[in-house]
């Protein structure tokens, strides 16, 4: 609301960038100042993931949240990143970018950046004085963040009072970090933290993809996504859905890059992001499973057929979910399993098709995502025609599996009506986990299909 609060959000952004960049350096992802700038968006998310996971674990073992905890945690992550990164002598070892020549792309980049700037500025203006109108935000996420900021811990009695108190804590931790940086629980300016996530997401997609795809294949899908109705309506909201989608999207891009011959750090960073996804929402783990299974299927068609690194990528997500579930069980926090039970599918067969149909309707029957899901299908189809089997399998596998998971959300709670009304069924917000990651890899998918690499590769570059 005030300049002071705006400065607080900016300060937090800088801290997350610094921590994330140091960790990326320790993973071997950056070896020059140019890499730091190019991967700044990814660094922001790595910072969020690492700091969010660490503080969540601290809460679980009984360490209270507070300014000292935040400073020590951020400082420790930064120090570890710096020390490990400084001991790395070898530069990042990816040479993917050398496989293709794209010619003069400056016009497309300039126009793309200019349009994206307008979209982001409009989103900033909408978020700067936005009220807390989203039910989940006012009933669950923000009260938990306020509790952390005011009391320093999540008391089981409190979690049993708020809506979905048993949901994982990462977004509440992130919002509490914003309150600490702002110096008050300013729920208005809090929207700008989520705007920062949108900016970082766009920057991360550009930074990761720009050297591997022609700009004409990168910018139109990115701009279309940034202007999609679901994104423009919810990008500033202090909810957990879009942060989950961002984590999944960036992890999926990194998996694609690894499958195409990228360096090992791609999967390391992806595993950190997937761990954060599992601590973001209850639905995080099933979506992580979709991503990993689709990756394993795609791996069968890729030059790299090793399944072990792809399977290992899911371990942080599984362990963090087990840790949180154990904590809420020990503390006596009431959780909620699917109303029909995990095998209730067979006793509720009548809900199966309506649930799937509702998901498909959100994707293809309304204006929520405009034509983006259709573009995804066409891109996967074109990749199949061009025999880019690996990425076609990854895209198709991920989309099909996540459609099933989203449908399961409606199916498993008979109390949810078959409607797109967000007040009673979260399917529209959930569908972001299908569309955002699929759109994020769409440029790579198109490039792999229609912009063949030059063989043999030329001089290796120093970074991804």
């Amino acid at each position: 609301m005030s300049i002071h609060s705006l400065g607080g959000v900016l300060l937090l952004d800088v801290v997350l960038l610094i921590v994330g960049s140091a960790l990326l350096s320790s993973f071997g992802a950056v070896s020059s100042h140019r890499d730091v700038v190019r991967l700044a968006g990814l660094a922001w998310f790595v910072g969020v993931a690492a700091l969010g996971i660490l503080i969540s674990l601290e809460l679980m073992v009984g360490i209270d949240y507070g300014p000292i905890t935040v400073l020590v945690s951020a400082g420790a992550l930064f120090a570890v990143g710096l020390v490990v990164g400084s001991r790395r002598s070898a530069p990042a070892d990816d040479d993917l970018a050398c496989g293709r020549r794209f010619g003069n792309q400056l016009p497309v980049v300039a126009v793309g950046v200019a349009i994206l700037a307008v979209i982001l500025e409009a989103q900033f203006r909408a978020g700067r004085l936005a009220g807390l109108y989203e039910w989940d935000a006012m009933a669950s996420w923000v009260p938990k963040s306020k509790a952390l900021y005011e009391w320093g811990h999540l008391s089981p009695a409190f979690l049993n009072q708020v809506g979905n108190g048993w949901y994982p804590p990462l977004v509440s931790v992130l919002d509490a970090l914003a309150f600490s940086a702002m110096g008050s629980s300013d729920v208005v300016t809090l929207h700008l933290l989520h705007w920062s996530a949108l900016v970082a997401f766009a920057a991360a997609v550009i930074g990761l993809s720009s050297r591997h795809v022609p700009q004409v294949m990168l910018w139109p899908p990115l701009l279309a996504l940034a202007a999609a109705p679901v994104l423009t309506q919810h990008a500033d909201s202090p909810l957990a859905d879009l942060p989950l989608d961002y984590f999944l999207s960036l992890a999926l891009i990194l998996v694609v890059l690894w499958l195409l011959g990228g360096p090992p750090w791609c999967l390391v960073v992806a595993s950190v992001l997937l761990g954060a996804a599992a601590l973001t929402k209850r639905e995080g783990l099933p979506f992580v499973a979709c991503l990993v299974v689709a990756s394993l299927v795609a791996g069968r068609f890729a030059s790299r057929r090793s399944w072990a690194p792809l399977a290992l990528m899911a371990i942080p997500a599984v362990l963090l979910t087990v840790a949180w579930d154990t904590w809420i069980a020990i503390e006596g926090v009431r959780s909620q399993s699917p109303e029909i039970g995990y095998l209730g599918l067979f006793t509720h067969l009548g809900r199966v098709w309506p649930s799937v149909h509702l998901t498909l309707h959100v994707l293809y029957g309304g204006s929520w995502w405009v034509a983006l899901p259709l573009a995804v299908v066409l891109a996967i189809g074109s990749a199949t025609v061009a025999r880019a089997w690996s990425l076609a399998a990854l895209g198709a596998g991920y989309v099909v599996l996540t459609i099933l998971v989203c449908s399961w959300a409606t199916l498993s709670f008979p109390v949810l009506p078959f409607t797109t009304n967000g007040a009673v069924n979260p399917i529209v917000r959930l569908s972001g986990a299908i569309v955002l990651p699929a759109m994020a890899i769409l440029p790579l998918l198109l490039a792999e299909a229609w912009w063949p690499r030059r063989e043999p590769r030329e001089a290796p570059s120093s970074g991804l």
Partner: protein
Amino acid sequence: MRSPWVAALVIAAGIVVYPVTVLAVDGPPAFPSAHDCVHPATSDGKIWLVLGRFSDMAPAEQLAIRAARAGFVGTIATLDGCGRVVVATPGYTTLSGAQSAVEEARAAGFTASPEFEP
């Protein structure tokens, strides 16, 4: 567009066009302050007697309890929507009635002012 300068100009134009348009149409941006939640009563209506505003809940609750003991029944301590806690006695409908209550509050040792309820 071979020159990087032209590209830079296109990007700069994209960055500048939106804020310039907004400034031209809406004027300079507003930065709401705590004062925006203060609406002094100037006529009859839904009025409450504001006894104070605080940064923290604890002193506000103490004042609310003290006011209730002094006879200002129904005094509450609640968030005012601008980041502060307001202590107020609601329930007045006429400005003259609220101004009489201000005098009674002064006599009881409180500082009070009639404001429109949000």
